[in-house]
Each structure stands twice: as C-alpha cells, then as structure tokens.
C-alpha cells in the first residue's frame, strides 16, 4: 500500500461543448511531494484543478485520493465541499478569494468550520454553553496563530483581509487553506504578482509545509524560478494534453516542452510535429 500515490488521476477528460479543455490526462501526485502543473496560457491547468477540487464534474476519468489509512476517495463522485471536508484537499484561487470584510483571524477561523461545528454540537450545544465548544474555540485560535506566525501575518491578525497588500493576501489564502488540515494542497498560481523576494519567501513556505506539516502540494505556476526550484515532479500540459512528465531537469530539456513554450525554427517544424504526433 505504501507505493500507492496520494492522488491518482486517470484518463481525465473535460469537454465544454465542442471544446476539449483537458484530454485524457493521467498523472500521479506522490505523498510528500511538490508536484507542479505547468503549461502555456489556456493549456487547461485550472480546469484540471477545478476537476480535482470538485468545482467541475469531469466528462470522463477517475481521480482517486488515498489516505494513509488506506481509504479511497473517488473525487469525481464527490461534491466540492465534501472533497475539502472529507477527502482533505484544500485549494487556493488564481484570483484571490478571501473574505475581504472579515479580519485575517476570522478568515482562518472560518476555515476550521467543520471541526468547530462538531465541537459545538452543531450549534445547539454551543449556544447553550455546554460541551467542549469553548476548548475547541481556543484550540482553533491557537491553530490560527500557528499559521499566522508561519505566514508572518500575526501583526495584521485583527485587520480586515481586504486591507492587506497583495503579497500578504496570497499568503493568507495559503494559511486559510492549511487551516482545513488538508493532505493535498492545490495552489493555483501562488506566485502570480509577487516580487522576487516574495517568491523566494513562498518557496520557503511551501518547503516548510511539505516538510514540517507533511502536506503534499500540487501547484500551477508560471514562475519558473518557483517551479524548478521546489518541485519534485513536473507535469506539462499543452492544449489539454500532457506533453511531458518527470523531474524538473528532465522537463526542462524536453524538446516538446521547449517547442510548446518557445516555438521552434521554421525548418524544424515538421520534425517536431512528427515527434509530438500532429
């Protein structure tokens, strides 16, 4: 069982009418790895994310998430909120989706909704002041503090999330996703709009999430300084099809990847097309 990957995506296909956004995509996310999903704009990366996290129902394919105790979750059959709550997959969004009118701390408390809901006896016992809600509430603040500390947001804890600068909002979204205690963290372009220093900081944060918190990461990213630096495994998509899969150095030197990103010389077009299978 130990060889079982955390997430196994098999023959994932997503069609929107006549448009094939993702075409027969298969890849694995290994436990404790940082896996990057890259590709040119419009390659279908975010669609893959939306399928994994349940925001889209895939047209075809199977996505199996395996927990440490061996239990399987078939993600394509679960509604989005159960994927987060039960299969333990958390995500962030390309265009940040924070609760802007709530404080930073409140954002992190909302993320612990399901744990607190149980502790409050589904509100009824908490309302009457019996049961362990008080202790659970204190524990949730402690956990929020841990993540505030880790993302260096402690000073801004009582400010509205909408007041934070862009880079802080990105980190807060990661902290919020981590507060749901995920096994797999899906990050949709976490480095978009960050300056080089902030990107470096993000690298360290993601490494620490993998090492200290034991959470596997799947990320979409355009910033190659992030991708090549931290990922163990890279999957390259182009027009919805996987064109390469392997270690960062392998992908970097793959002619198909270079062709997809940079294009090729005119005289090489036919050779490359034959190789790609066009």
């Amino acid at each position, binding site marked *: 069982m130990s060889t079982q990957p955390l997430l196994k995506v098999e023959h994932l296909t997503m069609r929107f009418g006549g448009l094939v956004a993702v075409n027969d995509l298969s890849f694995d996310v290994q436990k404790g790895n940082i896996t990057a999903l890259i590709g040119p704009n419009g390659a279908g990366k975010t669609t893959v994310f939306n399928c994994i*996290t349940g*925001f889209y129902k895939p047209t075809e394919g199977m996505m199996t998430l395996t927990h440490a105790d061996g239990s399987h979750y078939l993600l394509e059959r679960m509604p*989005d*909120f*159960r994927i*987060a*709550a*039960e299969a333990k997959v*958390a*995500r962030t*969004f390309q265009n940040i*989706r*924070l*609760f*802007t*009118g*709530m*404080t930073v*701390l*409140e954002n992190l*408390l*909302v*993320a*612990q*909704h*399901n744990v*607190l*809901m149980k502790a*409050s006896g589904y*509100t009824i016992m*908490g*309302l009457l002041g019996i049961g362990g*809600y008080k202790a659970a509430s204190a524990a949730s*603040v402690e956990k929020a*503090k841990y993540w*505030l500390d880790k993302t260096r947001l*402690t000073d801004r*804890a*009582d*400010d*509205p*999330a*909408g*007041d934070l600068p862009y880079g802080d909002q990105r980190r807060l979204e990661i902290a*919020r*996703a981590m507060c*749901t205690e995920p096994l797999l963290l899906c990050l949709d372009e976490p480095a978009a709009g960050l300056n080089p220093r902030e990107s470096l900081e993000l690298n360290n944060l993601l490494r620490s999430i993998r090492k200290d918190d034991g959470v596997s990461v799947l990320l979409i990213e355009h910033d190659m300084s992030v991708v090549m630096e931290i990922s163990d495994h890279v999957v390259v998509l182009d027009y919805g099809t996987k064109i390469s899969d392997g270690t960062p150095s392998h992908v970097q030197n793959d002619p198909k990847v270079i062709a997809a990103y940079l294009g090729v010389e005119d005289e090489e077009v036919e050779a490359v097309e034959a190789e790609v299978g066009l």
Partner: protein
Amino acid sequence: MAKVDKRIVEQSGPLKTGPMAALKEAAFAGLITFGLSIPIIAYGTRQDINNRLVLDARWDAVAWAVAIVFIGRLLVTLNAQRRAAGGGKLMRVPQSLQPVLGRLMPALAPLAIGFLFAFPVISIVFSGWQGSTKWIDNFGVQILIYVMLGWGLNIVVGLAGLLDLGYVAFYAVGAYSYALFATKVIPATYPVLGVWAFWICLPVAGILAAFWGILLGFPVLRLRGDYLAIVTLAFGEMIRLVLINWTDFSQGYAGISGIPRPSFFGIPFNANDNGFAATFGLEFTPIYRTIFLYYLILVLALLTAFVTIRLRRMPVGRAWEALREDEIACRSLGINTTTTKLTAFSLGAGFGGVAGAFFAAKQGFISPESFTFMESAVILAIVVLGGMGSLWGVAIAAVVMIGGPELMREMEFTKAIFGKDFDPTQYRMLIFGLAMVVIMIWKPRGLISTREPTAFLKQSKAVSGSHVKEGHG
C-alpha cells in the same frame, strides 16, 4: 474619509471649486425641482359648489420647493468642497471628549436596554394612565415588533447576504398559525388549555415559520442575487393569495377575529375575579395588558438579538458571513453551503413567525391585508438603512422608520405654521421618503456600516464598510 474623497476628486479630473461652482450646481438642482414640481405641485384641483372642476394655481408652493432644494444643494456642495479641501467634518467631537465617549460606548447597550425596560413607567409618569397607552402601544410595541422583524431579517439579508423580499410571508405564517391554533384547534381538542394558548403556540408558530423557511429555501438555493429576490417576492405574494382565496382555511378577506389575547402566565387580563387585576388586588384597567405586551415583545426582541450575537461568534454565524463574502471560497473550505443557507433562512423565518404570533395576539384580529408586500419592503428598508448586519443600526432604523411617521401625527405645532387645515399625518409618507433619500446620500451603506469582528487576537477593530460585501444570494 477626507483622504478618500481627495483621491476620488483627483481621479475625476480638475476639481471645480469655489462658491460659483456650488451656485451653479445648486441652480441646476433647483431647475430640476422646478421641472418636476410643475406637474405635481403647481396646480391643485377641487370641485366647486356646482361640481365643476377648478384649477388652483399654487406657484408659491413650487417656489418653496425650489428654494428648499436650491439652498439644501448649495449647503451640501459647499460642505463637500470644504471637506475635500481638508476642512474635516462640520461637527468634530472635541479631543477632550474622546476618552469619555470611548468609556461610554460599552455602557451604551445596558443603558439602552435599561431605558427600554423603564419606558412604560416613564410614559405613565409623564402622560398619566390614560395618555400613556398611546405611547406604549403605538410607539413602544409597534416599534419593537419591527425591531424584532428587522433583526430576524438581518440574519438572512445582513449576515448571510441572501436578499429576501418575501419576509412578510413568515410573519403571516406565524400570525395565522397562532390564530388558527388558538381559535380552532385548541378549543376543539383541549379547551382547558385556553388561557395558555399563547404560550403553547408561540414556539409552535416559530417552528412552523422556520419550517416554511426551509421549504422556501430548498427551491431557491441555486438562485443568486436578483433572481433570488424575485422568487422570494413571489413566495410572499403566494402566501398572501392563498390566505385570501382559501376561505375554508383562513376565512379569506374576512380574516380571523376573536383571537385569544396572551395571558399573564395563565392569568387572563380581564375584569373577572380570576383576572390579572383582581388576582394582584389592583383596580382593573386595560393598560396592564398593554404594558405586559410591551415587556413581552421587548423580551422576544432581545432574545433575537442575543441569539444573533451568540451565533455570530459560532461557526455557523461565521459561515453565514463568509457565505456573504464569497460562496465559492466557502465551498473550497469544506463548508456545506446548502445547510448554511437553510439555517439562515429558517432561523430568520422562525423569528419572523414568533413576531407574527405576537402580532396576532396583540391585535386579536388578522387578515391578509396586514401581510402585503409593503410590509416586506419596510422591513427590508429597515435592515438596509440600518446597515446590513448591524443590530444597532437596524434598531435605530426601526425607531426612525416606524416611530418617525407615528411621531408626525403628534406634530400639532405644524398647524400653527401651515394653517388650520394642515394635517401632518398626510405628509408622513413624503417625509419618510425624504428621510430615505437623505440617508442614501449621507450614509450609502446604512446608518452603521462598519462591521464588528467576531474574534480578535489583540484588539478588536471595526471593519470598514467598504470591505464588507453585500452578498449575491
């Protein structure tokens, strides 16, 4: 605030300042008023003795309207210019008063509640046993019903961000549940329970209304924003039309009369030997019931506020607010948005139902006339004008919106200004509309637009209304 104004001004190009620009703008507003008031105010019609229609020119009234708008606009523009120039607010709280006010703020809620509990006594002291009925009933009870309804709807609209235009439906469900149970079911089954009818039916009415809230909630779960508003509006009308047309059930337009009044925990308010007055050795007057009703609705409204305050600090309350901020993010965090929406709908509806039962018991007679769309609109206006999500704001708005027009009736002195024939009550809706426009200009996000955070690490800082979203259903 001044900072923000400046930035906006800078963005919108060169600023036109000076009294000339203000005069120009005021003249323009005056011109519009002139155009608008010609068809409405300039000519009045009346029938003379021979039944002929006579046109009365009222150009003086037009002149008054234009002058008021001109001066008002001039003052508003000049004030805005001064503020943009860094002049600050017209009335600034002196520096020395700031700490005093800061200490006063936490004591505000107990003070207000204390005043509300003392209100009947105060009104009896000032206007005697007879005169106080009006104050306690028309002002106290009436306003508190709307405060409770406002706080109930605040859960749905203010916290969860679900725009509900048919809230009056749940008010009607509560009122009719109590009316039907108390006049038909209980006399037919356990007539001994007659005096306790209200106390038994109060929770039942709340639960039934909450059930209807869930029933409405299910089909509209997938709708958002404007679409949700339209469907809830239709639902409110449906309930009213059913009540009108299903005469076997609700006696249609005739309504239900003879609804038992609430008892003082089993002791009825009447002149009999076992009545309230006789039991406590007092002389009988109907005001005891009025006072009792006042305290009853006060406690019910405070219960609504208490539950709202408690729930906001609990996961379900935070999930409501998160839902208002961003539904997709909620789902990505494992929050079941279906049940979250349904709890908001049903809890809001439940409080509406309890208020409805109280209304039926207070009036002793209900008919579908009491549950028109106008009621929904007034309750929603209270929530929106008060500032969505703010209990203080909603309470203040209810006092202004319900008490204000009521107060217009009392303004005898206006007769001295406008002549003997002037009837202030006829203008109350006009003033009501004017007040709404003023609030829209002055406080577009409601009277209290800031949001109190539900948890804090070091210091609780109010969240500015500009960050808080209104929800999209």
